[in-house]
C-alpha cells in the first residue's frame, strides 16, 4: 500500500534546522514536525511510496539498518500524519 502527501506544492513544506513546518492549504492549518515526520513528508513529495521503501530510503539517511522497530516507527508517524490530513493512502 503506497502513501502520498496531500500537499499541493513543495512551497508548503519548509525545513528549519532539525524541524519542519508545513502549511495545509485545505484547512489553513500550520504544523510543526520533528525530523522524522518532516523527512517522510519530503520523500513522499517526490513520489508516493510504501512503508518498506520509506524504510530503505530513510534507513540510509539515518544510518540505521532496516529493522522492524524502524518500520514500526515509520508506520506510527504515517498514521499521525494521516490524522492531520497531511498524507493519505494512494
Amino acid at each position, binding site marked *: 500500500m503506497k502513501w502520498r502527501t496531500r500537499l499541493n506544492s513543495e512551497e508548503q513544506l519548509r525545513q528549519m534546522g532539525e524541524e519542519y513546518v508545513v502549511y495545509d*492549504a*485545505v*484547512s*489553513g492549518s500550520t504544523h510543526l514536525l520533528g525530523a522524522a515526520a518532516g523527512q517522510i513528508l519530503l520523500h513522499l513529495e517526490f513520489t508516493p511510496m510504501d512503508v518498506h521503501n520509506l524504510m530503505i530510503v530513510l534507513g540510509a539517511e539515518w544510518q540505521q539498518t532496516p529493522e522492524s522497530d524502524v518500520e514500526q516507527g515509520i508506520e506510527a508517524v504515517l498514521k499521525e500524519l494521516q490524522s492531520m490530513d497531511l498524507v493519505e493512502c494512494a
Partner: protein
Amino acid sequence: MRKTGLIVAAFRHPQALPDWDLQKWDVLLRQLRQAGMTASLYARLDGLGLLSSIPEQAARHLAWAAQLARRHKQSVLYEVGFIRNALNRAGVPVVLLKGAAYVLAGLPASEGRIFSDIDILVPAESLNLVESELMIHGWHSTHHDVYDQRYYRSWMHELPPMTHATRGTVIDVHHAILPVTARLHPDSAKLLKAAVPAGGFATVLTLGPADMVLHSALHLFYNSEFDHGFRDLVDIHTLLQHFSGLPGFWSGITARAQDLELTRPLFYALRYTTLFLNTVVPPAVMIKADAGRPNVALLALMDSLFEPALQPDSPDHVNLIAVAARFALYLRGNWLRMPPLLLMRHLFQKAVISNRKPVEKTQCDI
C-alpha cells in the same frame, strides 16, 4: 455627482477610475467598505487590467479586502467538503445556493463576497434524513424557541440554521426557494432536476444558469432585508454578463421564468440592472420579460421604493428616504412571504418572546 452615487458610478464606468482624484477615491473607499463591496471592485478592476493604473494609496485598500475574500473562498471550499462528506452517506446530492454556489462554480460573482452561512437545497422528502446526517456529523440546530422552530419548519422553507459544534460554521438547509406560506410556488423539483455539477465534484451541484439568475432575483426583490441591495444587484448583473455567452441562455430564460412562475422577479431584475449598471440585455428578451410587468400604478410604486432603496448608503449622511423605502420594502418582503395574519403574529411574537442578544462588541484589548 451626488456622494451616494459614487459606488454606482464606479461599477458603471470602471474605466474612468484611474482618472479619479484621491479625494474621490477616499469617499468611494468608505462607501465600498460600508456596502461590503471593496473586494468586488478589486475583482472588477483586476479583470479589466486596471489595478496598476489607480492611485497607490487607494489600491492597497482594495488589495486588503481582496485578501480577506481570498481566504474566505478557501474556507468555503473547505466547509463544502465537510457537508459533502456528511450527505454522501445519505445519498443526497448537495445543491449549493447563493454565495457558496458562486465559489464552487468559479463564477465572477464569487469575487468579494463574504457571507457567514452556507445555503443548500434538498428535496422536501429528504429533509429529515439530511437533518439527522448533519447532526451525526456535528451540526446542531439553533433557535430552540418553539415558536422559531415552527416559523422555520412550517412557514418558511428551511430548517432552522444549524451550527457546527467544533468549526462554528452555519448551514441553512432549504427545501424550497420561497416559503410554504408565500403566494408563489416555484417548483423545487424542477430546480433540482436542472442542477449542474460544480467544482469538479459529482455530488456537489449548483442551480442551472437561468435558475441561478432567477433565484438571485427572487432573493433580492422578495426578501425582507435590503441592506446589501446594491451588492445583490451587482451580483445579478455579473451573472447575466457571465452567462450571456452561453448558447441558449437568453432564449431560454424568459420561458423558464414562465415555467417557474417567476416572471415578476425577472422583470424587476432586468429593469433595475439595465437602469443602474447598463447591463447588456438583448431587446427581444426585454420585450418577452414584459410578461412580468406589474400594472402602471404598482410599477410606479415599486420604482419609488426600489430606486432609493437600492442606492448604497453614504457613511456620511443617513439617507432618510432610503431608510423609509427600505422599511416599506421590509414589510412588503415579509408580506410576500407570509399571509398578513401570520405576519402580524410573527412580527409581534418576535418582539416579545425571542431573546435576541445585541451584537457583541469587542472590548479594547489590544
